[in-house]
């Protein structure tokens, strides 16, 4: 939980760019990608907003990073509504496992029963799930949506 930048999985992933579907957005300060589950089908519409800098939490951000993360959460939320059909988008920051700021941004789909709201959205049997192709296709749609500066 207190990894140095050298052993941080988030730093490694950003540097290699090796994420399923590729980076959805990145600039000098922030990075976003779709989460991929290697053990079972992936819940479609679960992305992470991260800083480029290896910094543990919101408290340590520079003003420019803080503004960029706020903007990225907002833009990813719009993209999940437009590109994935989400009717609500959650955003959580805990950071208990990896000490490199990452915000979980994920969709809740229309019709999701209330007992599956919040952190259980992916447990609803009718929630959309997919493999590499479906994740990559959604990541591509979101990337294209966000590449339009107006989005």
């Amino acid at each position: 939980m207190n990894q140095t930048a050298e052993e941080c999985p988030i730093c490694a992933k950003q540097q290699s760019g090796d994420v399923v579907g590729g980076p959805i957005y990145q600039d000098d300060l922030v990075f976003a990608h779709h989460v991929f589950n290697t053990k079972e089908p992936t819940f479609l519409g679960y992305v992470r907003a991260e800083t480029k800098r290896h910094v543990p939490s919101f408290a340590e951000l520079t003003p420019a990073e803080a503004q960029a993360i706020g903007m990225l959460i907002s833009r990813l939320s719009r993209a999940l509504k437009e590109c994935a059909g989400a009717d609500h988008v959650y955003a959580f920051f805990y950071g208990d496992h990896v000490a490199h700021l990452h915000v979980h941004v994920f969709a809740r789909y229309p019709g999701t029963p209330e007992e599956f709201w919040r952190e259980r959205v992916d447990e609803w049997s009718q929630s959309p799930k997919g493999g590499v192709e479906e994740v990559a296709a959604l990541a591509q749609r979101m990337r294209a949506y966000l590449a339009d500066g107006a989005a």
Partner: protein
Amino acid sequence: MGDCLFCTIQHAEKPPVGGVLYEDELVYAHHYVPENRPAYLGHVMVETKRHIPDFAGLTPDEAQAVGLLITRLSSALKTCTGAEKVYAEFYGEVTPHLHVHLMARYPETPQEYLRWNLSDWPDAPRGGEDEVTRLCQQLHSALTSTSGVS
């Protein structure tokens, strides 16, 4: 909007316990105090001024202001409460007016209460109006004495 909890708090029809922690044209922050039970000390709400349900509806200026305020208050909460970390949670399921919960996570919090169970920890630092007001005074001076960021 007329009966929105956060519009009501911001318009001071029902001023928050401990007062306003931060306010400008776009955003607003106050300490959360539940009715009829002690407050979890270090549970702060960051809100937009505009009655808008979620992050997707924010203007770029609002999105930046929310990000900046989360950072400044996270830093102030660490300084003033001894929190090891500050969680930031946006659920937005009950009141359709953007509000982000900031939760001080204390170093001694048992594993089973981490993440969304933080406020269920029976031994978490809690207090009534006096304790919340004292903490808010400290937070307020931490926010005004520095830029709040390192």
